[in-house]
């Protein structure tokens, strides 16, 4: 972050600031509206009234990468879609995270052939992998909560320069 490039490690001051920043991030992390295949339908059910991902701060699914902090890769990534996905990841503002939802995004899943990229971590750095084909909405929400744990532990000093 900008502040730690300036402040560095100032003990109590930065730790409370870290907690404040982590609190603000985990309570309003907007995912990018970006569904590829079957997992997108389960992501829609997770966003809808019954499972309601908005309880965890994911109120809105922002269509454009400019206003989203989290990219949920929901579905199989094909060879033709891979450069587009990388372009969208590059166009997201800086504190950004990636959840690879479902087996097809995590490791190619059922499709081990010429058309599918075997795991989206060959294209974008992934923070949390959610298993399942498609993962139940609760599994996706569990993945989101694990991501929140990871965000909470982020220290200023070790941020990517």
């Amino acid at each position, binding site marked *: 972050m900008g502040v730690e490039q300036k402040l560095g490690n100032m003990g109590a001051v930065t730790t409370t600031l870290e907690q404040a920043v982590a609190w603000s991030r985990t309570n309003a992390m907007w995912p990018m509206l970006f569904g590829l*295949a079957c997992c997108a*339908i389960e992501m*829609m059910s997770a966003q*809808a009234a019954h499972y309601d991902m908005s309880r965890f701060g994911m109120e809105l699914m922002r269509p454009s990468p400019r206003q989203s902090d989290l990219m949920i890769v929901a579905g199989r990534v*094909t060879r033709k*879609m891979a450069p587009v996905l990388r372009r969208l990841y590059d166009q997201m503002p800086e504190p950004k995270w990636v959840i690879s939802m479902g087996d097809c995004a995590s490791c190619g899943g*059922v499709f*081990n052939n010429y*058309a599918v990229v075997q795991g989206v971590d060959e294209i974008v750095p992934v923070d949390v992998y959610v298993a399942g084909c498609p993962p139940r909405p609760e599994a996706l929400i569990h993945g989101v909560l694990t991501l929140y744990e990871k965000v909470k532990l982020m220290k200023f000093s070790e941020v990517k320069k």
Partner: protein
Amino acid sequence: MPDIQEITIDDLKHLVSERAIQGETVLLNMGPQHPSTHGVLRLLLELDGEIVVNCIPDIGFLHTGIEKNMEAKTYQKAEVMTDRLDYLNTVGNNLAYTLAVEKLVDLDVPVRAQAIRVILVELQRIASHLVWLGTSALDLAAMSMFLYCFRERESILDIFELCSGQRMMTTYIRPGGLWRDVPVEFEKAVRHILKTFPRRMDEYEALLTRNPLMLDRTYSIGKLTGEECLSFGVTGPMLRASGIQWDLRKDRPYSGYDQYDFDVPTRTEGDVYARYLVRIEEMRQSLRIVQQALDKLPIGPVRSNNFKFVPPPRSEIGVSMEALIHHFKLWTEGFNAPQGAVYSAVESPRGELGVYLESDGGPKPYRVHWRTPSFDNLQSLPLMAKGVLVADLIAIIGSVDIVLGDVDR
């Protein structure tokens, strides 16, 4: 990882009009990541202000090579691939594939299994129409419809989970019948839906059908005549909304559909509003079919006892030697289908879903081609999109009801 190809105007010269080349009209990508393309569809729009002069669809962003992958799997294992094709109609895909395999190996299916198949496929049709209603109403800014429709869909997915343990990718329909019989609570759960769903449908109709906002956005927009539909190979609700009554459940019945009486809703205007009315009426007809199928649900086995193709039940394996041999052979090597080619089609919520299955006598399908309805329905989009406002184009895409897994296979 290759970068995105630079597309310049001159290699689209044969597609776009003269004005685009001089730079008068704008070439805009309604690209793979767009909230209202219902998946990773890319439309290259040639815009003159808000008017769409030309619309060039570019598909293939979800091409998973399912047909090639199915050639490397045995007949039973290949069925797992079929769920991922049209992921809103997974039980319907299983049925299409299973009917093709049964036609190829000439396998009989017990009556109870056929009735349960009809119930599940009709419930899946309602669930698929609900996702269509929810998302296309969301595109027309009716936010609450999305939440209502997905609330109903949960009750239907619970039934699939009841039978097969999986909400969407059930693989519950197997060649020769079903994976196993339905649990005891199945009838009560389906009765609950039959009781509550019609009232919910009236809520949706009250919200949308005579809503002036909806009428302004959908009435006489994206018109298609019957002949244009047929020349584009459009089937399903879009064809029936243009006045041609062609429903495979009625005209070429399969899996016992001729026992149930239901009528096929058709309209003549052929615009977005007519497709909306046809799909809403289809949901009610599906309820009628489920009602009749559930009332006359026959008692009996759910799997054919031709153990050359159907794995024998666990109880018999310990007892008889042949059952053990069949069990072992089927699960290791699969059954050898006779040489030949078969085409069998079912009525999916989007149209005629056909499977061309060819076998060379081995345990693996030699060639599986999926005739998917969205592939042809999407071809009529450029015709409907000419001279239309961009906002209307979004309503038209919603009414075509495409699923990109269906289009790209």
